């Protein structure tokens, strides 16, 4: 290590080159520990994604045209019949099986697997309906409340208490909202297991999140902007409309997308309020009155996953259904979340006070 150049230096100067000390060794070891831990977490999560996307992909996609398993995405869950006929083995959904039987004109004995045939279209529809309805309620109530709390209310003890309780409610477990929705909407209001009961339950679950996030993004806007606008003769609402909401919008938008992901992903609140394990008809079929639409239960992706993975006997055929459903569900929720994360990163760069 001793070079010519170094020989000319004083020992004091040489000590600048440092020596491996215990502290440095410990530092290196500990940092490696952190690094390994961090990547371990990433790997664990990746293993879930890979497992579900790989195995689920086999259900959702296929090697022949049209490459996507249309029946799975557009059909209803059915019983799967597995049988042999004329030396060939078949796996057919219940409806196809009946047609096949009629054409063949003979009685065929088949092994049946509940929930393993058909598709998950009603679940997708149900989830979308639940999300749209509950977010409409939550955003209306939430954003308007946030405007009031941030812009109109007088600061003081009451406001702080309200804020604190809203913040606290944001951490209440979803099952508690589930039991509340069941007791309140399903039983006390007599709405039964219905779309509307699910909407309100989910809406109240995300309401605290929407309110506190929206309010926070409004409060983050410098008072100077409002003052400047008011000083130019704008009314309070004009000041809010032109100088608060536009800049707070990104924050509000992000928080509402997070809310969407949460609403779409939760199972516990809809288990007893809105979700059916199996329903033949799609929500718009067979309605006597238009308002019946709101008072019908629907199938939903998360509940469907729960049903097919916990309530029915497991075998290779159900496993296909499970992974396929999980794939579609994860794809939807992860997609929404990804949008919100990307949006937030972009917004952070754009607005800095």
């Amino acid at each position, binding site marked *: 290590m001793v070079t010519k150049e170094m020989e000319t*230096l*004083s020992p004091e*100067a040489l000590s*600048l*080159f440092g020596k491996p000390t215990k502290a440095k060794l410990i530092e290196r070891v500990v940092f490696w520990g952190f690094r390994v831990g961090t990547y371990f977490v990433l790997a664990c999560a990746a293993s879930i994604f890979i497992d579900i996307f790989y195995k689920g992909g086999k259900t959702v996609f296929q090697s022949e045209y049209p490459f996507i398993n249309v029946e799975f995405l557009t059909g209803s869950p059915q019983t799967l019949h597995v049988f042999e006929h004329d030396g060939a083995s078949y796996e057919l959904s219940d409806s196809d099986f009946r047609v096949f039987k009629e054409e063949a004109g003979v009685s065929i004995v088949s092994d049946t697997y509940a929930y393993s045939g058909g598709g998950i279209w009603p679940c997708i529809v149900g989830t979308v309906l639940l999300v749209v309805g509950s977010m409409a309620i939550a955003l209306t109530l939430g954003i308007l409340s946030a405007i009031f709390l941030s812009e109109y209310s007088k600061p003081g003890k009451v406001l702080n208490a309200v804020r604190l309780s809203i913040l606290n409610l944001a951490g209440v477990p979803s099952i508690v909202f589930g039991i509340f929705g069941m007791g309140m909407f399903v039983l006390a209001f007599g709405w039964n297991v219905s779309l509307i009961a699910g909407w309100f339950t989910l809406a109240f679950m995300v309401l605290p999140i929407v309110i506190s996030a929206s309010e926070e993004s409004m409060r983050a806007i410098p008072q100077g902007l409002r003052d400047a606008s008011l000083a130019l003769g704008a009314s309070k609402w004009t000041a809010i409309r032109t100088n608060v909401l536009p800049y707070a919008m990104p924050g509000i938008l992000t928080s509402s997308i997070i809310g969407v992901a949460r609403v779409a992903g939760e199972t516990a609140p809809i288990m007893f309020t809105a979700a059916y394990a199996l329903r033949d008809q799609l929500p718009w079929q067979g309605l006597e009155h238009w308002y019946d639409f709101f008072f019908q239960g629907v199938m939903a992706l998360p509940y469907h996953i729960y049903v097919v993975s916990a309530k029915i006997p497991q075998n290779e055929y159900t496993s296909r259904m499970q992974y396929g459903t999980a794939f579609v569900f994860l794809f939807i929720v992860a997609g929404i979340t990804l949008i919100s994360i990307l949006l937030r990163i972009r917004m952070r760069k754009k607005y800095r006070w």
Partner: protein
Amino acid sequence: MSLVTDKLTTKSLIETGELYSEMTEINRSLINISNFDFFYGEKQALFDVNMDIKEREVTAFIGPSGCGKSTLLRCINRMNDLIDVARIGSGKITVNGVDIYDDRVDTIELRKRVGMVFQKSNPFPKSIYENVVYGLRIQGISRKSKLDESVERCLKGAALWEEVKDRLDTSGLSLSGGQQQRLCIARALAVEPDILLMDEPCSALDPVATAKVEELIHTLKDRYTIVIVTHNMQQAARVSEKTAFFYLGKLIEMNATDQIFMSPEKEQTEAYISGRFG
């Protein structure tokens, strides 16, 4: 660590050093900066800086905001390493003859010898005592007598001892601004550096506190080499032997302080000193 001039140092003595040295004693050059270019990302912050900083002298960096004086200061103990986009273009800085940007140089050892006091006083949220002994503790020194001795010595060195000796257990954040800054100086002294870099140490202080810190700098220069960045030209005139004037990332002029203020060679220097810009 004492800085007794040994035979090696005479070799590196720069003849011209005597010319503008006010001190009768011949000082050797401790920090040498040559052809130094520095970048923040794509933006060049320093252009071809050359200078010698003498041992046990106070050197002041002056210049308008954004002229690169703080940047250069932070290069001397490689604090810029903490900024991801910072990089050196060309040239080198040597301390005691060693190129501090050499790969083999240990920034930790470097920073033990080149202490720093920041613009905004930044005591840790710990007691006064713990603030001072922090540097010793991280070196593994934990003997109470040694720490006590060091706390007293450094606080005295920073002219703070009389004011805080009865409340060493209170939080460093409970002190006034000027006291906090002197605490930070005491903290830096505890590591026994040779060089003290001061980045506008008085900019956040009131005139009384500023006077105290300046007084402190006067007493410290017997033992330490001090480089101080300041906005305040009077301050530079009061405390320093040498003054370097920076403008737009370039070292415009460096000379004995009297000379800079009385008869600057460059027009820009004169313009700045006489208050026409900056």
